C-alpha cells in the first residue's frame, strides 16, 4: 500500500517538475534570466485560455517567448515588450491588466468589498454601543407580548 502511494506521489511530482518548458536561451547573467522568467510568467498564451507562455507548449507561446528573448537582447524595456505583444494579441495576454477605466472595477472590487464589510461591522458595533450594556433585552411592547403568550400557555396546560 505504502509503495503504491509512494509511486503515485512520484508520478504526480514528476509532472510538476516537467511543467516548465525548457528553451535553450543564453543570458548574460542571472538577473537577465530572472527578468526573462518573470516576463514570460506574466504573459498569457492566447491559444490556451489559462496558461502563461512559460508553461505552454503551444507553438504560439514558443513564438512569443522567442520575441520576448529577442526584444530583451535588443535592449527593450519590460513595458515595450509587453506593449508590443498586447498590440498584436490584445489585452488578453496580460495577466496583470493595466489600471484604466475599463479595468477599474476589477482592481477596485477587493477594496470595495473590504470597505463594505467594515461598514457593516461598524454599524453593528455602533448600534450595540448606543444601546449600552445595561439596555433591557426586550422593549416594553415585547415584554407585554411575552407575558401574554406565557399566560396563554399556562391556561392551555394547567399544571
Amino acid at each position, binding site marked *: 500500500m505504502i509503495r503504491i502511494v509512494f509511486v503515485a506521489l512520484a508520478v504526480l511530482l514528476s509532472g510538476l517538475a516537467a511543467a516548465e518548458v525548457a528553451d535553450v536561451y543564453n543570458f548574460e547573467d542571472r538577473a537577465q534570466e530572472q527578468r526573462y522568467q518573470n516576463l514570460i510568467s506574466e504573459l498569457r498564451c*492566447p*491559444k490556451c*485560455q489559462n496558461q502563461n507562455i512559460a508553461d505552454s507548449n503551444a*507553438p*504560439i507561446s514558443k*513564438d512569443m517567448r522567442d*520575441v520576448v528573448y529577442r526584444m530583451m537582447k535588443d535592449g527593450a524595456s519590460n513595458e515595450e515588450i509587453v506593449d508590443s505583444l*498586447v*498590440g*498584436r*494579441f*490584445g*489585452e*488578453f495576454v496580460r495577466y496583470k491588466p493595466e489600471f484604466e477605466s475599463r479595468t477599474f472595477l476589477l482592481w477596485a472590487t477587493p477594496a470595495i468589498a473590504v470597505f463594505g464589510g467594515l461598514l457593516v461591522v461598524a454599524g453593528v458595533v455602533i448600534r450595540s454601543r448606543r444601546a449600552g450594556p445595561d439596555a433591557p433585552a426586550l422593549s416594553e411592547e415585547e415584554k407585554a407580548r411575552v407575558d401574554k403568550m406565557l399566560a396563554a400557555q399556562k391556561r392551555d396546560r394547567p399544571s
Partner: protein
Amino acid sequence: MKRFLLFLPLLVAVVIGIVLFAGIGKDPTKLESALIGKPVPEFSLRDLHNPDAMLDQGLFRGQVNLLNVWGTWCPACRDEHDDLMWLAMEKGVPIIGLNYKDNREDALVWLDRLGDPYRKTIYDPKGTLGFDLGVYGAPETFVIDAGGVVRYRHVGVVNENVWEQTLLPVINEVREDG
C-alpha cells in the same frame, strides 16, 4: 429600512444571475483582434506561386478583401476550403491567402488538388506576418477594407452560416463606409 435589508439577498442573487446569464453562449476561445481599426502590418514576403515576386501591404489597397490564414497542417482549414471555393467562385469575393508556417511544395499540391480560391497567396513559412497579425490558431479570416485597414477577424472555419451571419454584414458595412 429593515424591510429593504430583507430583500438584499434577492437583489444580490438577481445581479449575479444577470452577470452569469450574459456569459452563457460566449465562446471564451474567440478573442477580438487587437488590430481592428489599424492598418495591416508592414510586411515583405514572397508570393506562394511565384517565389521571385515580393508582396507587401499594398496588396490590400483598392477593394475590400478577405484575408484567410491557412496551412496544410491545419485540419480545420481543409474543412473550410470548399466553402472558400464557393465564396470565391459563386460569390466573387476577393480572398487573399496567407500560407502560415507551411512549406511551399505541400501548399502548392493542396491548391492544385482542392482548387485555389485565392486572388494571391502570401507565403509566410516562419509565421512573421501571422505573428504581427496576432494569429493564434488557423484558420482565421480577416476583413480588410479598401484602405488596407483591418475591420474584423473571425477565428475558426468559414462556412455558409458564418458568411451570411457574420462576414457579409461586416463587408456590407465596410463598403458603405467607403
